[in-house]
């Protein structure tokens, strides 16, 4: 294979057609095209408007509680230095967490939802729809819809409704209607299909609040811009704490919104190595994983071209992960491009490794992480002992684990 020509900057995409290299685009039914073009126009206008930016910043600060702390995980760092010493390596990088799990609603998802609902208001839309897998984006959508007084319908796979009952309850308390989706296999991709069908039907009044940096242009770019607050803050906070850039960034990728949010502001800082962590599920040999970048191939789904889990006939497969938030057979198109251009390295982490990391963090730092960032943490645990003590890793702790305690408790055989 030819090695792609290294671009001057990794931060200029997408182009006018919404492409990141060969990835991205606008693969949607004609019914949706005028809406997507309208959305794009409003987004271009909003992102250049100081008043919009000020509104987002104000809500980020006073509603979400930003900036989220950049926390030096001292006990975990010490623990991994002991591991390093025991291996005779004598290393152990310093580990920092970007603590987006402390945000209102418990994850990074709120960053995106606030920006999008302000846009929906500007567009005069009166009804919000969203898809959700684990329920984190559903909760964040229901939250901002309540805050702005708009009705909200959340599509959620019937399988996920069952395994994420606490979040379903949260959404309902917040006034959202949760529609269980039984078509297909009743998971996140089916929920997204159903949300698109709703949007195709209710084109006049409805705003589709996509939860990740995927879907037709301009969503991948818009969600990235709204989530980039994570990386911008982290950069500033790192300069303040250490006076220099980190050596490595690590984040979990499902659809990829928290990861692109952390990565994007650092993409042109070539000294910073960047690692995205996919759900390896029960292993890449079988079909029970969600590692679309590591084990998938390019295809077209949900409005964009990107790496997908699919069979040789182009039919989309069901993924598996212990974490419902990573359980999606696709990935944001910018990640596909970053993989092929070689700027970001993507690796899989197995269910069992994520579970171990989950428990380690709980006991060393007193933080219960969501299972999604537990995947990122498992990669940090692998890498830190092999790095020097003066090297620095920043990991995005993008969600808290309250929603996962039942899943984890069940697997560990704890009676609740």
């Amino acid at each position, binding site marked *: 294979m030819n090695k792609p020509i290294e671009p001057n900057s990794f931060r200029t995409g997408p182009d006018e057609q919404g492409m990141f290299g060969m990835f991205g685009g606008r693969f949607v039914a004609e019914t949706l095209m005028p809406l997507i073009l309208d959305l794009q126009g409003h987004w271009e206008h909003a992102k250049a408007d100081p008043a919009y930016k000020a509104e987002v910043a104000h809500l980020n600060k006073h509603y979400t509680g930003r900036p989220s702390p950049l926390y030096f995980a001292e006990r975990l760092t010490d623990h991994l230095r002991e591991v390093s010493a025991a291996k005779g390596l004598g290393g152990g990088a310093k580990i920092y967490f970007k603590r987006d799990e402390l945000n209102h609603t418990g994850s990074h998802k709120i960053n995106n939802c606030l920006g999008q609902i302000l846009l929906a208001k500007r567009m005069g839309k009166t009804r919000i729809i969203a898809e959700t897998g684990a329920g984190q984006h559903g909760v964040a959508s229901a939250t901002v819809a309540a805050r702005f007084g708009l009705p909200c319908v959340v599509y959620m796979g019937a399988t996920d409704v069952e395994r994420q009952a606490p979040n379903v309850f949260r959404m309902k308390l917040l006034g959202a209607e949760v529609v269980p989706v039984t078509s297909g296999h009743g998971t996140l991709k089916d929920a997204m299909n159903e949300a698109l069908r709703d949007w195709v039907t209710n084109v006049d009044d409805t705003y589709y609040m996509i939860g990740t940096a995927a879907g037709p242009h301009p969503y991948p770019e818009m969600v990235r811009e709204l989530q980039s607050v994570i990386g911008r803050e982290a950069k500033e906070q790192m300069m303040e704490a250490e006076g220099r850039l980190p050596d490595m960034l690590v984040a979990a990728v499902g659809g990829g919104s928290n990861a692109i949010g952390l990565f994007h502001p650092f993409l042109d800082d070539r000294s910073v190595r960047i690692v995205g962590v996919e759900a390896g599920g029960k292993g890449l040999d079988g079909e029970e994983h969600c590692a679309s970048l590591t084990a998938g191939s390019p295809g*077209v789904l949900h409005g964009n071209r990107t790496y997908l889990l699919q069979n040789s006939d182009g039919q989309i497969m069901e993924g598996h992960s212990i974490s419902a938030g990573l359980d999606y057979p696709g990935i944001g198109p910018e990640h596909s491009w970053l993989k092929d251009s070689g700027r970001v390295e993507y690796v899989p982490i197995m269910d069992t490794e994520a579970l171990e990391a989950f428990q380690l963090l709980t006991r060393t730092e007193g933080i219960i992480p969501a299972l999604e960032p537990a995947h990122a943490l498992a990669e940090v645990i692998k890498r830190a002992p092999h790095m020097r003590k003066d090297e620095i890793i920043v990991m995005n702790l993008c969600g808290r684990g309250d929603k996962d305690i039942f899943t984890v408790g069940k697997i560990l055989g704890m009676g609740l």
Partner: protein
Amino acid sequence: MTTRIDRRLAHLKSEGRPALVTYFMGGDPDYATSLKIMKALPKAGSDIIELGMPFSDPMADGPAIQAAGLRALKAGQTLAKTLHMAAEFRADDDETPIVLMGYYNPIYVYGVDRFLADARASGIDGLIVVDLPPEMDEELCIPALKAGLNFIRLATPTTDEKRLPKVLQNTSGFVYYVSMTGITGSALADTTKVATAVKRIKSHTALPVCVGFGVKTAEQARTIGASADGVVVGTAIVNAVASVIDPKGGLTADPAEAVATLVSGLAQGVRGARLVAAE
């Protein structure tokens, strides 16, 4: 370069009646039965066949066509088999136009050039690919036109005056007017609005305009056919197949016969369309 679609629609125009365009899902409930359904369509009065290519994630389709696609995939249907089905049909019928309809991903994975060559060789005349708007014309539309296939585009109530020329620019064969926003199989739209919309599209193009989404009965086919060059029926046909499948997947009657009965009725409706309009 004319295709069977161009010739068939021109011929029907000279006869003064609209076309009956019938959609069915390739491979539903299985390959052999589905081929039988396909062969029954022209005899029952179908003028143009839309051959559905099943896809796991049909985002613009309602429950009936979703279920049909999943049945077909479960029975082992693939894009290669759908093309083979068209070729088998062509062995006996070199006249009835065949339009392949579905989503882009299976074609993309098959490989665009290989797909176009195989589609031509299988006797395919046109393509409808739901998730390829004019913005993505370089992907498949332009290569398909170069290969001598029609690329039929959907126009919808959201396609306004400003956008219509862009939608029509590389469209050939006919314009498929989707009479409502929403997914396939929803309720029929207001027929007077449909007539206005057809007129609006015709003011921009000389292409025939066929109307679909929501047509289920001969009466509706007659009404829509009064203003359109063709009436597309899909969900009703897929439902006719589903109606003879029992919950365990067995057949309670012959699906080809169920489809033929429905299509004969619809064909009568379409054939009566202009008579009604003339009265």
